[in-house]
C-alpha cells in the first residue's frame, strides 16, 4: 500500500480545510475514505483495497482469508497461529495421546501446539505468541496450506 499517497491526501485536506474525502480509483484498485472531525482531528480514517476492483482474482483461498480474518482478530487483541508450511495437521503427538493443547489453555511463544506432517516428516509447530487458546480452526488430520490460520489466541 502506498502510504505516501495517503499522507499526501491528508495534507491536501488539512490545507484546503476539507472535512471529508472519498476517492475511488478503479485503476489503482484503491478506495480511500478519510473523514475529519469538527475538532480538526481525523475521526474515522479508513483505507481499504477494493475487492479485486477490475481484477478477476481467484476466490481467495487460504492466504486471502487469513489476511482478512487477521485484521479484525488483531484489533480485538486476538492473534492467529498460522501454518508455516503445507502439510497435514495433527492435534496430538500420536493417535492415542492427548492433544497438545485445548480451548482455554494458556500458551507461550515456545509452546508446541500441533504437528504438521509434510513428506512423512512430523514438524512440531510452536505458537510464537502467548495467551489463551480461544478456538481451534482445523480438524485433526486435515490438510492445511501455507499461511492457513490454525488457532485463535487471545493475547490480552
Amino acid at each position, binding site marked *: 500500500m502506498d502510504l505516501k499517497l495517503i499522507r499526501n491526501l491528508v495534507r491536501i485536506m488539512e490545507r484546503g480545510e476539507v472535512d471529508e474525502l472519498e476517492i475511488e480509483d*478503479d*485503476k*489503482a*484498485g484503491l478506495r480511500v475514505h478519510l473523514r475529519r472531525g469538527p475538532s480538526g482531528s481525523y475521526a474515522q480514517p479508513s483505507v481499504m483495497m477494493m475487492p*479485486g*476492483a*477490475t*481484477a*478477476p*482474482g*481467484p*476466490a*481467495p*483461498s*487460504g*492466504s*486471502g482469508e487469513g489476511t482478512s480474518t487477521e485484521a479484525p482478530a488483531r484489533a480485538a487483541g486476538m492473534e492467529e497461529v498460522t501454518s508455516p*508450511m*503445507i*502439510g*497435514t495437521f495433527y492435534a496430538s503427538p500420536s493417535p492415542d495421546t492427548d492433544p497438545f493443547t485445548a480451548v482455554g489453555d494458556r500458551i507461550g511463544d515456545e509452546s508446541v501446539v500441533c504437528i504438521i506432517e*509434510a*513428506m512423512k*516428516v512430523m514438524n512440531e509447530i510452536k505458537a510464537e505468541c502467548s495467551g489463551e487458546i480461544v478456538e481451534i480452526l482445523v480438524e485433526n488430520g486435515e*490438510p492445511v*496450506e*501455507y*499461511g*492457513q490460520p490454525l488457532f485463535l489466541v487471545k493475547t490480552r
Partner: protein
Amino acid sequence: MFRRILVANRGEIAQRIIRACRELSIETVAVYSQADADSLHLRMADETICIGPAASGASYLNIPSIISAAEIADVEAIHPGYGFLAENAHFAEVCRSCKIEFIGPDSKTIEDLGNKARAREMAMAAKVPVVPGSDGPVRDEATAAKVAQEIGYPVMIKASSGGGGRGMRVASNEPSLLHGMRAAQAEAKAAFGDDTVYLEKFVEKGRHVEIQILGDRQGNVIHLGERDCSVQRRHQKLIEESPSPILSPKQRKEMCAAAVRLAKSSGYHNAGTVEFLVDGDGNFYFIEVNARIQVEHTVTELVTGVDLIQEQLRVASGETLRYRQKDIQVRGHAIECRINAEDPAMDFQPQPGLITSFVPPGGPAVRIDSHCYSGYRIPPNYDSMIGKLIVHRPTREEAIRTMMRALDEFVIEGPKTTIPLQREVLEQGEFQKAEHDTKFLERFLSAAAPRPSGPASGVAENRT
C-alpha cells in the same frame, strides 16, 4: 491418461498447462506463493494450494512443500513448466521415489544433459557436430593455453555445470584466457558448487537455432522443426520464430536428424530442445539440450498444429506418440515476442506493480499467452515476463506485418514494457532481411539513442 496433476509453476506457463489439462479433462491442482494469490490461472484450476511466502526458495523451489501438496491433493503427476524445478534432477528423482510422475525426461537424462561437458561428450558420441574445444574438462592453465592454441582464439571458457551464461567467459588471447579461467571457476564454484570448466571455440557471428523434439517412453522420437532465437540480449531471448529464415532444406534436415540422434542416444522422452549455433558459413554446432518445455514452444505449436503441452501429458502418462515424423508438417511462419515488464531505456530495469489497463490485441493470426489483466499487480519476486504475443501467417513478411499491427494494438498501462523496443526491432532492415545474429540486439541497443549501459560483466540468468 492422468486423472489429476499438480502444476508446479506460476504465471503464463502455469496457465498454459492448465489450459491443456482442461482440454484433456485432467483435473488440475495449482500451487502458489502468497505473492501470486491474485493470479489468473488460480481461477481456472480445480484446486489451489498456497505453498509458501513470496520467496521462490520457500515456495516454487521448495521441494518438500511441493511434494507435500502433491500428496495431500492426491495427484498422479507434476508438471514443472520451465525454470524453477523443471531441470532439477533431484526433484525428478524425489517425484519418482514418491510414485508421482514427473512430466519430463528421466532424472538420469536431466542430470547427464545438465552437465555441459557430459552433454558435449554425448553429442560427439551421437555424431552431432560440436564447437571445436577441449576433450572434456580443462584442469590446469598449461593445458588450457595449449588447447586454446590448437582451436584458435577467441575461445570461450564454460563451466561444466553452468547454465544461461553463468560461469562463462570469452578470451581473445592467453592472458585474458588465464584470467577468465580463474574468474569462471570462481563463479561456477559459487553458483553451482563445481568449478570444472572446459574450452570451446567462440563463434562470433552466430545464429541461435534450436530443434524441438518429442519422445515417448517406447523409444520413439520425432522432431517438430526448428526455432530461430537470434534476437537476444545477454542470452535472454526477446523474439523467436519458426521456421528459421536462414536454413537451407539440407541444413534443416541435417540438424533435425542430429537432434533426434542425440535424443535417442540419451534415452530422452517427453519434450525437449536441442540448441545449436549456426555460423556465417552455415556450419552448425551443438550447444546444449534444454530438458523441458520452453517459453517459445508456441511458435512450433502454430506452424505444426501440435499442442506440445498436451503431447507432454500424453507421453508422460505412458501413451505412444500419436505422431510419426511424416505427420509433422511445418506450415506458414510464426513469430513470438516476449512481453516483459522492463524499461529498455533504463537498462531493462524490471517494472513490478499495478497494471492499470491491459487490453491484449486480437483478430486474425494472433495468439496471446498471458496471466495478466486490468488490475493485476506484477509481484517483484519473479521474472518480468508478463505475456507472450504470437502471430502465425503464411509468410514471414506477413507475420512481421501482423506482429507490428498487434504490438501497436497492445494496451498495457502501468509498467513500461519491451513492446516499443520490439516494434522498433521489427522495423529494422537487418531483422526483416533475416541478416541478424545473436549480437544484433546488443549492437542495435548501443547504436540507438543514448541509454545507460549495463554492467560490464553482464551475464544474466537464462530461462529459455
